[in-house]
Structure formats: C-alpha cells, structure tokens
C-alpha cells in the first residue's frame, strides 16, 4: 500500500464511528432524509443523525444523495 493509501486509511479511521449504518440501511431511510433536507428541517432523531454521519463516511452514498437532490430540485 502506498503513502496515499495509508493517508486515506488514516482519514477513514478518523471518520469511523462505533455504530454506523450500512449503505443498505441508509437506503431504507434515504427518501425520508432527502425530503427533510429539501424542506430544510431534518429531525433530530438518531436515525437521521446516523444517515448524516454515513454520508460523511461513504463517498458512494454521498454521491447518490447529491444526485437525488439534484434530480428532485430539477423536477420541483
């Protein structure tokens, strides 16, 4: 593993939480989360906080979330 990968490993360790939702678990909550974000009012439930944290850890889910928001803002 080269230096860049080791650096990214350290970055991933920094972002690691004891409890994290998997991508599939986030997917089940994503529609509710997206609507709340679009309305500017995300509730403070543990579930929504975990979705938010997951997006800080998982670039793939973050990419999907941003695309969903883009799509809906275009359609609204």
């Amino acid at each position, binding site marked *: 593993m080269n230096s860049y990968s080791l650096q990214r490993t350290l970055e991933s360790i920094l972002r690691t939480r004891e409890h994290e939702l998997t991508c599939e678990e986030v997917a089940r909550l994503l529609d509710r989360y997206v609507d709340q974000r679009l309305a500017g009012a995300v509730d403070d439930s543990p579930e929504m906080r975990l979705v938010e944290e997951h997006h800080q850890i998982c670039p793939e889910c973050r990419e999907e979330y941003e695309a969903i928001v883009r799509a809906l803002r275009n*359609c609204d």
Partner: protein
Amino acid sequence: MSASVEVLGSPEWLAALKDSGPERELRIEELRRFLLVALRAGLAGNAAAGDAFIEDVAQDATLRILERIDSFQGRSRFTTWATTIAIRLAFTELRRARWRDVSLDQFLASGLDGATLLQSDSPETAARSDNPGHQAHRRGVMEVLQRVMLTDLTDRQRIALEAELEGMNQVPLAEKLGTNPNALYKLVHDARKRLRAALEREGITLDDVREIVFGAS
C-alpha cells in the same frame, strides 16, 4: 401525457397505478417519463450515463417501483421515493460497468509488503509541514499503521479495505469477493475499528492521527 409532480403520488394517482385497467398503463408511462427527467438531471455531467443508458434505467426503475409499490408507506413524497430507487439503480449499474473487466488481483497488485512504504509524500503532505520532526513522526505512524494492518486484520479485511480506499466501488467489490454489500460494509467497518484500537494500543491517539492527516498546527 405528462403529470405534474404534485399529481404523481397523489392517492388517486397511486390507486390507478395499482389497479388493473387502461388507466394503469397511462400512469406507468407518466412514471417512466418522470424518471427519465429525474435521471437526466441527477446524472448530468456523468459521461458514462448516455441517453440509451438513462432510457434503460428509467425502464428498469419503473418495473422495480411497480414491484415494490405496496412497500411505499407515504413517509416521504412518492416522487422522492421513486427517484431514490432510480438513482441508486443507475449508480449500481454504472459502478458495475466501470469495474466489470477489472480483476481484483491485478487491481491490488501493489500489495502490502511495505516495499513501497513512504517512498514519497504527496506534494500536499510535503507542503503542509517542512518540520523534520513532524515528518519523522508521520513516518513512524505510517510504519505502525502498515504493521497493524498485517497483524490485526484478516486477509479478507485487508483486501477489502485496500480495494475500497483505492477506489473500487462496493457493489462490484462485494461481487468479486463473493459476498453482498451489506456484509462487505460490516467487514470494512470492523476493520476500521480494529485499526483504530490497534493504533491506540500502540500509543497513537486520534489527535496524533488528526495531526498527521490535517498537518501540524
């Protein structure tokens, strides 16, 4: 034949979608057209998502939504729920295609034997600090990290973690490892927690890691 966003997902519209009859076909087409617009906007700028790909995904997403229609509970707008399904389907297919012809072994050919340990820092890292003490500290942490990756992780965890950090997407990586994305995420999550614990055992705190990652203050 188009329906406004407000109409899509209304109780009457959903009832017609679930019913059997000529109006159902009209509602299905309205859904498909909505998904086309949503996908084009959501995937704008993605070179791999051409018109033909988006058409295919809109069609597949329509079918998937119809299969799952009874699971829509109204906790979100229908258009949000449907768009989420379509966008996720699109990314899954894009990522599968991106990695389809890439062998995991070849992708990880650089290995973890430490032969290339810290041969050179990135320009950004070098620019962050020209303090020799900081550089020595950073090298020390990296050496420990490389060692605990070999002692504290399973082979499978090392492979999965490295592949993800090198950029391989989860769905194709899970398929290449003969597992599913859910299990893969838990495998890598456990690996990250093990590494964090191992670094702490070696006397390297999260503050030390932060200093390495973000530079000396």
